[in-house]
């Protein structure tokens, strides 16, 4: 039919390709020679929790020199852990959502609504405490489910959805509680179980509350879930590239909905811990938990663009904020400089994240 060379020899490299180096394996994976800074960038990229780990260590050393004895006392350390306990728990929920490239602005509102449900049912309605706590956790799950439904079924941006539900849940909280605090002694006499997480054991001068232990356990649990279960890997994949995850056979909507429900349940557990921490149930409690949790997640190295980050990072992020606040307070520095320091930390953390995302292109 034709005497063109390509039809005479349809196999083997094209003429122009013969000049390519021969004998190499296809798509070889060869380590590249890298400069010092590039190597640091790669190392940090491979171990994202290294940065908050180093920052925490440096700040610990710094404040032990500046403040001295009082800072280094075990009791002070246990105090820091107590102070970051709520933020740490809510931070776990927030990390899950942010890993899917979403954000949950309603975590604080879910927590306070759940705490009022637990408190009122146990103290005023006279329900057995375990049942009241169960209903409170159910309310948290429902709130999270509503967020998840709006994000997946109605394709609304998570920021807008949770900005809306934040207000809705908080209004429901004020309505349900009639803006009244449930007093500590009422809880003590009617439902001491609600104060469980406020109890503590003394270890070497440190006062370790059950709430602190619970937070550490929750972090360990979700470290396992995120790294060692298929669901955890899928949470990362959905946040990294939703379309690719869907083509790879992942039911992305199911992952998103379960993430928001689990986040709601964790917030309800934080509500229980909150009652133990402050001793009462107040509709105005935990107002700062929302932004503080996001701060912990971001300082912990989890990317707001989704797909990369870690639960351990969030714990470290929460501890960094706690150490800065505690250390600066003990140094007698004006409270406003605590806020200043946290602000600087956030911006530095996100700048590092951006730098790492540009790695190895």
């Amino acid at each position, binding site marked *: *039919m*034709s005497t*063109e060379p*390509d*039809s005479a020899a*349809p*196999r*083997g*490299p*094209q003429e*122009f*390709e013969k000049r*390519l180096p021969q004998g*190499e*394996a*296809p*798509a*070889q*994976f*060869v*380590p590249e020679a890298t400069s010092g800074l590039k190597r640091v960038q*790669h190392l940090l*990229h*491979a171990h994202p929790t290294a940065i908050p780990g180093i920052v925490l260590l440096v700040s610990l050393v710094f404040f032990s020199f500046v403040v001295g004895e009082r800072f280094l006392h075990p009791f002070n350390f246990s105090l820091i852990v107590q102070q970051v306990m709520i933020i740490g728990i809510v931070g776990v929920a927030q990390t899950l959502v942010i890993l899917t490239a979403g954000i949950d602005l309603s975590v604080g509102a879910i927590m306070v609504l759940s705490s009022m449900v637990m408190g009122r049912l146990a103290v005023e309605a006279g329900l057995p405490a375990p049942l009241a706590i169960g209903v409170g956790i159910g309310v948290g799950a429902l709130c999270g489910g509503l967020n998840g439904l709006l994000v997946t079924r109605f394709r609304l941006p998570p920021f807008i959805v949770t900005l809306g539900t934040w207000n809705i849940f908080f209004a429901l909280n004020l309505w349900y509680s009639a803006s009244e605090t449930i007093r500590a002694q009422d809880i003590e006499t009617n439902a001491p179980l609600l104060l469980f997480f406020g109890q503590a054991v003394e270890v070497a001068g440190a006062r370790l509350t059950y709430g602190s232990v619970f937070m550490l356990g929750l972090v360990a649990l979700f470290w*396992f879930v995120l790294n*060692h*279960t*298929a*669901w955890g*890997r*899928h949470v*990362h*994949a959905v946040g*990294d*590239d939703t*379309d*690719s*995850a869907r*083509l*790879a*056979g*992942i039911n992305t909507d199911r992952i998103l909905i379960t993430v928001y429900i689990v986040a709601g349940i964790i917030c309800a557990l934080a509500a229980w811990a909150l009652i133990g921490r402050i001793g009462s149930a107040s509709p105005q409690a935990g107002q700062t938990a929302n932004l503080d949790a996001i701060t912990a997640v971001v300082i912990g190295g989890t990317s707001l663009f989704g*797909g*990369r980050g870690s639960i351990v990072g969030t714990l470290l992020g929460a501890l960094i904020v706690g150490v800065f606040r505690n250390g600066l307070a003990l140094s007698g520095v004006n409270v406003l400089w605590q806020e200043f320091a946290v602000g600087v930390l956030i911006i530095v953390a996100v700048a590092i994240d951006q730098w790492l995302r540009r*790695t*190895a*292109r």
Partner: protein
Amino acid sequence: MSGDNTVLSARALVKRYGRVTALDHADFDLYPGEILAVIGDNGAGKSSLIKALTGAITPDSGTITLDGAPVAFRSPIEAREAGIETVYQNLALSPALSIVDNMFLGRELRQEGALGRVFRKLDHSRMQQEARTALSRLGLMTIQNINQPVETLSGGQRQGVAIARAAAFGRHVVIMDEPTAALGVKESRRVLDLILEVRQSGLPVVLISHNMPHVFEVADRIHIHRLGRRHAVVKPSDVSMADAVAIMTGAMAPPAQAA
């Protein structure tokens, strides 16, 4: 030419979008162990054909058979479960996840015993081992770190991972959509070698490509799609590239005897 011993075949597929007929009684046949290229001008309905075969769209009428048995996929996941693997043009890889994670994305292996059943713990070491085997089968195993994120790989390496994933899990067919479109000359060359490797391993390959030199280099047969149907099937040894393009665009009548 009936679909006697075909791996994947289609008869009289029709798909209409309003007044546009994307597939007009299109036929398709893929035989064991071959590389079948699908070419066609833009708008010829070639991607509709592939989407119908991989479950991304459901044809209005017509039949599809896989290994002689009729199938009707409602989603790409169903096609995948039936053993038809697709390497999408965007590769469907998750950049922040590792090579191993990506290879097993959506079909992770769980650990045996209570750890796997109760705690749903994944078997990382078995997945690493199998990923390594899959990559080395295609001559891709010079990777020093199989746990490195996919985003640290070059375009050709990513294509390699996506093809290795498809070849490892594809039980019947591997379909590749423009695998060399985004690559440079050197990397294209290597990916073409990979495609030949996949055929070598016994899996038939459907190659959708606009690149005539690439098609003529690796394909055993060429399915020319035109105006929503199979216009001709030719062998690269029988026609020239210029003729193939002429047939594809309607400038030349297809050869009387289809290959």
